């Protein structure tokens, strides 16, 4: 698989933490061997905390949102720079269902590693966007 969208071993810092988890601050975005479009977001503070993430447009090609000015400032984006985005994947078993949190994307500035979890002020996108049909395989 080509490594088409994920940075290699990028350090991400969430100055304000994640929604509901203000203590989640320092993470490393790690490619998985053979992971293709999926990467791991590993906490540097707590070993047990890690997430599967992917690029939102891979699960929803039309995905788009506006970045509020305050968030642009926090990320250190200048001019018309736009943040990169990731979404968390949640895997549920029996039956196997994978959902993507498109409501709360993780935005980051690839140049600085500053990151922020935005909650979109819209009901257009779901926090449990189905990535694949439910069912065993």
């Amino acid at each position, binding site marked *: *698989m*080509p490594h*088409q*969208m994920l*940075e290699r071993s990028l350090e991400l810092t969430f100055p304000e933490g*994640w*929604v*509901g*988890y203000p203590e*989640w601050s320092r993470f490393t975005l790690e490619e*998985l061997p*053979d*992971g*293709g*479009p*999926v990467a*791991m977001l590993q906490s540097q503070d707590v070993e*047990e*905390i*890690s*997430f*599967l993430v*992917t*690029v*939102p*447009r*891979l*699960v929803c*090609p039309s*995905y*788009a*949102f506006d970045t*509020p*000015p*305050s968030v642009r*400032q926090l990320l250190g984006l200048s001019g018309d720079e*736009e*943040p*990169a*985005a*990731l979404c*968390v*994947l*949640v*895997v549920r*078993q029996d039956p*196997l269902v*994978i959902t993507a*949190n498109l*409501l*709360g994307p993780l935005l980051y500035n690839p140049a600085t590693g500053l990151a922020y*979890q935005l*909650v*979109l*002020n819209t*009901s257009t996108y779901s*926090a*449990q966007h189905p*990535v*694949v049909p439910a069912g065993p395989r």
Partner: protein
Amino acid sequence: MLILSRRPGESISIGDDVMVTVIGVSGDRVKIGIEAPQHILILREELREAVREENRAGYQVTPKEIRAAIDFLQRLLEPPSREPTDSR
């Protein structure tokens, strides 16, 4: 929690910058107008709660889950070849 009664058209100010106005009441729905500086994010609480819940559900990924996710996504997602880093 501070609890105040307001009639339609009446407002509450919060600090110097935020004004909350009851626009109208219809049945069990209250229409609220909010004026606030741009840097204050205003959200319906259930959206924030939905994101918080997925954050809770998403961490502590097991190797089995990783493998399952990779297998599914590699089969079903054909990554676009253009715009290599623009993921917005």
